[in-house]
């Protein structure tokens, strides 16, 4: 009954260069290659993960995009027809992974940064200090006084100090391999930043990283034990995720190996689909109770935050979340990544993170809450430029996940949900996971974020700013250059050509 879909990618093997070592065949976890008649032949099923291309000792392989074979049609374009055929084949919800590949307007590319000229000097980070220390947690807004002096003995809410305004997003053990998570955690440790645990608890081998791990309490409550909650630097209640707002975690049975089955306490090979809402949170007051419960169980020693997907009413929701007691709030945008999500929701629900950051920042300011809470934002942050613009729009901390995986080897082929990642990242198969050397991966992630932080220092120095907190929400230093000035109005950024103020 299934109708075959035309190939999208095709590996081309240069017979003259090929030394017939068959490495590519062993490395292709999608089974796209075979050895026959004394040469490497293509079976079909290439996803363009470029594993064979990278691994080939003689660089004999190139993956080419196959020319479009569908009749050109501007409305029923190739993507639409492919979806229809695939859906008619399976009769199910189409799964996909990574952030959306639909071309939603990327507002970051429509924002320009300011720099200092004449009336104030730019600051040279090579010769002068430019600080990037960032705190995550609740702030008191003012300091308690005693006898006319500031009472430095007074209790302060728990807060985490990080060396850069960046955290590694929540990627669960399950959606990625043990080695991947180990590499992310040790990179966070080396960089002194926070990495998210994702839904699924903290493996006991990773207890050593607990000072750099933000543990997630998601609707499935996988792995959430008293022990787990006490071994983390912060706790985050995950209400939603940018890639699939309104949905819970989504771990296909292919990825539920022995290790994951133990960690999540579910039978091997079963789909782990977390409930869509938290079934103990049907309202904001329920959230307030869960926040209190988590604060009680962690003895008020760690900040408790809430992560929400950027949806249309995100400003009001965020303010409610802060009023409910969240110490930090994480907003995840439309283009955020995922290890598995229904394509329909990934591609069609939510709000771009640029707008979400600006509206949440604005709303919290209007309600007098902005100086009490840390705003983290992620979902589509690809470079230090995006990071800088997100901070200038109002985020205290920027959350990055896909870029960290790309640093390790991921090529964003969007097949994470299949669980056979050839790079050993989004898979639980032993023969694949061992492909990722956690030490090398740690080094690469560390390199990437160090470089981003260096670029941040370069850019804010050029703006005449010598500490990153003076960039947070400083929308005066951004200008809009895109086609829709209404966006500029909504995010509170002036159009290019308009002066300060």
């Amino acid at each position, binding site marked *: 009954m299934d109708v075959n879909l035309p190939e999208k990618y095709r590996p081309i093997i240069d017979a003259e260069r090929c030394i017939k070592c068959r490495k590519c065949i062993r490395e292709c976890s999608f089974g796209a290659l075979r050895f026959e008649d004394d040469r490497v032949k293509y079976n079909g099923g290439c996803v363009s993960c470029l594993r064979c291309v990278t691994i080939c000792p003689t660089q004999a392989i190139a993956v080419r995009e196959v020319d479009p074979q569908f009749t050109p049609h501007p409305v029923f374009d190739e993507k639409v027809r492919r979806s229809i055929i695939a859906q008619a084949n399976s009769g199910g919800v189409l799964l996909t992974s990574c952030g959306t590949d639909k071309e939603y307007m990327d507002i970051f590319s429509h924002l320009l940064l300011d720099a200092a000229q004449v*009336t104030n000097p730019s600051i040279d980070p090579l010769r002068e200090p430019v600080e990037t220390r960032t705190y995550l947690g609740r702030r008191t807004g003012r300091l308690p*006084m005693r006898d006319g002096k500031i009472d*430095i003995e007074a209790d302060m809410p728990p807060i985490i100090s990080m060396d850069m305004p960046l955290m590694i997003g929540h990627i669960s053990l399950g959606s990625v391999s043990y080695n991947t998570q180990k590499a992310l955690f040790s990179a966070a440790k080396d960089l002194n930043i926070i990495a998210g645990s994702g839904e699924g608890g903290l493996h006991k081998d990773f207890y050593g990283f607990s000072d750099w791990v933000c543990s997630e309490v998601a609707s499935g409550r996988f792995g959430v034990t008293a022990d787990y909650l006490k071994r983390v630097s912060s706790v985050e209640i995950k209400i939603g995720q940018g890639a699939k707002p309104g949905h819970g975690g989504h771990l296909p049975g292919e990825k539920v190996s022995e290790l994951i089955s133990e960690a999540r306490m579910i039978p091997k090979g079963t789909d782990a689909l977390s409930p869509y809402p938290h079934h103990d949170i049907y309202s904001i007051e329920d959230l307030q109770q869960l926040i209190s419960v988590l604060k009680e169980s962690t003895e008020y020693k760690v900040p408790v935050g809430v992560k929400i997907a950027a949806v249309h009413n995100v400003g009001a929701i965020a303010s409610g979340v802060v009023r409910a007691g969240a110490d930090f709030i994480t907003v995840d945008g439309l283009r955020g990544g995922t290890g598995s999500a229904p394509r329909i929701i990934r591609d069609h629900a939510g709000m771009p993170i640029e707008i979400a950051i600006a509206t949440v920042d604005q709303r919290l300011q209007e309600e007098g809450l902005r100086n009490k809470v840390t705003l983290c934002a992620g979902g589509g942050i690809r470079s230090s430029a995006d990071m800088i613009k997100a901070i200038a729009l109002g985020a205290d901390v920027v959350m990055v996940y896909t870029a960290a995986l790309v640093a390790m080897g991921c090529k964003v082929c969007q097949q994470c949900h299949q669980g056979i990642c050839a790079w050993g990242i989004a898979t639980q198969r032993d023969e694949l996971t061992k492909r990722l050397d956690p030490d090398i991966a740690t080094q690469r992630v560390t390199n990437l974020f160090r470089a981003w932080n260096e670029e941040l220092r370069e850019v804010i120095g050029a703006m*005449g700013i010598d500490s990153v907190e003076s960039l*947070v929400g400083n929308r*005066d230093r951004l200008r809009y250059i895109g086609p829709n000035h209404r966006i500029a109005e909504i995010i509170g950024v002036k159009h290019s050509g*308009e002066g*300060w*103020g």
Partner: protein
Amino acid sequence: MDHRGRYDRVDDMGIRSHMAFDERRYVVEIPHSMKYQMGSCGIAGAINVNGEKIPGSMIETMITTMAERENGLGAGFVCYGLFPDHTDEYCLQFLFDDDDARREVEEFMKDWVEVEWDEKVYTSTNFIRIAPPFPLVRRYFALPKRKSVQFWMQGLDDDDYIVRMVMLINAKIKGAFCVSSGKNMAVFKGSGYARDIAKFYDIFRYSGEMWLSHSRFPTNSPGWWAGAHPISILDWSVCHNGEITSYGVNKKYVEMFGYNCALLTDSETITYLWDLLVRRHGLPVEAAAFSMAPQYYSEIERMGSQERELATRLRMTYKEAFLNGPFSILVGRGDPITMIALADRKKLRPMVVGRADDDSEFYVASEECAIKAVNKDTSTWTPKAGNPVVIKAGEGLVRTGLEPPFQGVV
């Protein structure tokens, strides 16, 4: 003489001053195109700590000595200890574009305050090179009307109540601007060279225990009287030389506490920050100054444990109050009359402090020449970056600006 029979007013470069810019001179009403004002400036201040009066001529000499630091688009003076007969009332000094604006303000204030005494502020347009029109300047000595419906509805203490009223008038009433609202002090400012503004208000007729002054070198703005410095709220006044690169952050922060930024300048947010941090949040001056010009974390880590704790808490809690970018500011406050001088943490703008040999008077200026021009018998020094100088009437030099950041606070 021009076609209207006005005498030509010619500036130093021979340009007829009313021709130098737009025919329209902005007095009180905000210039239409203006979104933000920026620029560099000269600042000067003098204080007598023994309660003796300093004549206006002295501050005029100080600021005009640094005439190179201005371009004729704004200057101003503030005098503390000016009204010994009216020390309890708030002195609300206004600039009006016309008589209608004055009537409107007086009508508005009827619900809010009891005006004990009001008077026209002396002004003269003789021998000055400022192009007309000129504002009407009037001051009102007033007390909150405690029994009024307004007072009950606002539910604020006296100071906050006056702040609220001033914010409302400046935002709502066109052609009127309250330039100062403190007790026993007043601001004299306008668009012009410092010496012309001095002549316009005839500041030579006044004397007080402390004077601050400012001359502007704006880079972008038409002459706008209300936008000149000092910028004042209650008995706070700020003369600011610099450009704050964190303006967007600081502005949003003060707006969160109900301050309305009507002057479109970073200097205004600095004034409100001082009011917020010191008057409303009760921070000691040293701590407030540290919040605005904090030390680096690398320096904080080398402090003693108590200082480190305090410094970290201040940086964390008041990170939005951090003034980034170059500045040197002179801050005045009444009761007791206090002068605070502070430069940014990289000290990108100049500031010199002078002490008269008999310890009676202290001076702060952008350049040493301003100090030496009025008193040769002074010892001068430059305070450290981000380190406040504090001089209090009756107490003398409280901080030299060379001490460790929290001396006397922890």
